[in-house]
């Protein structure tokens, strides 16, 4: 009486909803909370579960305490307005000689009173529109480049790297720079010699040697010509009042240092990265040496060097603005980091791209400009953004050589006896931290977004 093994389904098994413990918030809670601490199967596992429970509770308590005290300080206990202009009185407790009762939190009227200082430093009141115009221009430019469907993104990007810095310089300082006649003559002569020589030479009118060198002459000539144009534009008298950099401060200085650093370091970094990969030993070793030197020393030492040693390196009588000295140091320093970022991009370009370009007969400069750099720079945009975040945070170091950036300005306000209360410095630090955090966090999100996009985007 063997049973048949044949089986035929006559009725469909019903399609049921999952058990209630597998859906909704209960599932979430189980998966994300209790699954890690519910194993009591053996003594070891039980001990582990208990430890995890204890740690979870501790962290939860600690985290919530910190968040709560922050909210309490910044919002609940905070002093919001100072209608009678009591200044420190409004934020000091009765015991401290003020009018506030109970716990005092953040002193927001203090920040309100110092707001202008924190953003512009001591930039003259009448001229603030210049800074504001710049901020607006910067914001528009950045949004334009970030918005992926905007037209002319590339062109706007180029404008932001060329015209914008020049405009910023003129607006902030007032332009009307006086260059010595010697400087003028030198630059005009160099432009004529190199650009003119290159252009005429390229037509093969000056003999074969000049024809061969014309490419180099034109490239170098364009650099000199660009410098000449920049000199000309900055020497114009547009009727703007000259504002000493000593009067700049706050967010303005932070942005100036960070953006100058990144804009100046980009071309320098590209040159260094290309140089490092050069087949010519002298050039590649020089670039390696330069890059590794700046990457090996801390920014502070660089700032020390540029503020103390730079004046020694230059001929007597050449006076350098303190901010400019810091900017030179920052630009050289970040160029080394930028070079490494760009090198990463260059290394990611497959060898076939070089071969394809060479087989078509492109020369080295053409290949680099048309094929390699456009691809490499696109890959390294997230890296550039990350470098910028680092630089943005590092600008705080300029306060050590006596410049007033965002942090330095906020710290300098603590010396105002009119507002001196125990909550003054925590309020100031909270504002500084929040501003830096907002800038850096949004930039890091953007770079992450770009990385993901590049990852999924079609390659080859």
């Amino acid at each position: 009486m063997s049973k048949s093994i044949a089986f035929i389904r006559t009725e469909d098994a019903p399609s049921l909803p999952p058990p209630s413990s597998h859906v909704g918030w209960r599932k979430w809670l189980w998966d994300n909370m209790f699954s890690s601490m519910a194993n009591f199967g053996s003594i070891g596992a039980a001990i582990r579960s208990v430890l995890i429970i204890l740690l979870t509770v501790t962290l939860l308590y600690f985290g919530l305490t910190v968040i709560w005290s922050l909210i309490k300080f910044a919002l609940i206990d905070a002093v919001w307005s100072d209608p009678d202009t009591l200044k420190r009185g409004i934020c000091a407790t009765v015991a401290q000689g003020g009018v506030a009762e109970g716990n005092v939190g953040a002193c927001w009227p203090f920040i309100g009173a110092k707001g202008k200082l924190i953003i512009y430093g001591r930039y003259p009141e009448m001229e603030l529109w210049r800074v504001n115009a710049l901020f607006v221009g910067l914001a528009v430019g950045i949004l334009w480049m970030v918005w992926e469907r905007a037209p002319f993104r590339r062109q706007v990007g180029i404008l932001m790297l060329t015209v914008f810095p020049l405009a910023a310089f003129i607006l902030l300082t007032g332009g009307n720079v006086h260059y010595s006649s010697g400087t003028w003559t030198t630059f005009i002569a160099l432009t004529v010699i190199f650009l003119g020589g290159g252009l005429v030479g390229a037509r093969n009118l000056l003999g074969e040697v000049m024809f061969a060198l014309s490419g180099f002459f034109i490239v170098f000539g364009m650099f000199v010509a660009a410098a000449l144009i920049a000199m000309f534009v900055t020497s114009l008298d547009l009727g703007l009042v000259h504002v000493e950099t000593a009067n700049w401060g706050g967010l303005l200085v932070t942005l100036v240092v960070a953006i100058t650093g990144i804009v100046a370091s980009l071309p320098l970094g590209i040159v260094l990265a290309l140089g490092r990969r050069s087949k010519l030993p002298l050039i590649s070793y020089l670039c390696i040496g330069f890059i590794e030197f700046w990457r090996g020393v801390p920014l502070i030492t660089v700032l020390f060097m540029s503020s103390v040693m730079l004046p020694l390196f230059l001929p007597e009588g050449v006076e350098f603005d303190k901010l400019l000295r810091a900017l030179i140091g920052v630009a050289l320093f970040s160029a080394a980091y930028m070079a490494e970022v760009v090198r990463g991009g260059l290394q990611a370009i497959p060898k076939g791209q070089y071969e394809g370009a060479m087989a078509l007969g492109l020369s080295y400069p053409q290949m680099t400009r048309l094929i390699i750099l456009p691809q490499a720079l696109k890959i390294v945009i997230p890296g550039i953004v990350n470098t910028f975040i680092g630089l943005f945070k590092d600008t705080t170091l300029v306060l050590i050589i006596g410049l007033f950036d965002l942090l330095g300005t906020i710290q300098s306000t603590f010396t105002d006896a009119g507002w001196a209360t125990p909550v003054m410095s925590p309020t100031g630090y909270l504002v500084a931290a929040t501003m830096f955090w907002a800038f850096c966090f949004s930039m890091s999100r953007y770079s992450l977004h770009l990385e993901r996009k590049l990852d999924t985007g079609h390659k080859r």
Partner: protein
Amino acid sequence: MTTENKNTAVSGETVIKIENMNKWYGQFHVLRDINLNVKQGERIVICGPSGSGKSTLIRCINRLEEHQDGLIAVNGTELSGDLKNIEAIRRDVGMCFQHFNLFPHLTVMENCTLAPIWVRKTPRKEAEASAMEYLERVKIPDQAFKYPGQLSGGQQQRVAIARSLCMNPQIMLFDEPTSALDPEMIKEVLDVMVELASTGMTMICVTHEMGFARTVADRVIFMDEGQIIEENEPEEFFNNPKSERTQKFLSQILSH
């Protein structure tokens, strides 16, 4: 195609001359005493086991690789360290790669017009018109404004061929153009190559497509261990290989 299609356009003029050429990678002697003359309009297929130096040989012809000894002359211009000669030769010699090496950041059209515009200084309009012509010849004019990443492998290789043709080369080098392709795409690329051959283009192809070699080639060259072992007309080469190594290679490659 039948043997009647055999090339009659071979003129007496030598366009590539390689004499006693040697090349080393460090200590390794990759190319040994290579002698080869290619006449105008001739179609040559180079085959051989992997690592035999066939790719290296044709990459020496447009100096993607440097040879250390002997002479390579293209159109009477000798290849040496002279950049001007190298540029001149690269203008006249087109090349297609195994992995296409299209520029991913440029559209198909930009890929095709890049070199004419920057190297030959052709006006853009003219370059685009001629690019369109070549894209039609390789049968993908409708893809002209797409990016290479949006095309199939076969289409990409055809774009690569069109891109080389846009420079009006006198000689075309093919470095295993079909070996990175899926089987169904090989035919479309080979068709383009056969069509190109029928126009009288001088071609040197490194390939394992023996059918192509039989129908199109004027001469088949077999290389092994960096040397030219045997060269002959395809008929003779396939039906009556002289060298033992050739016989072994052919038996391996044709056995399945």
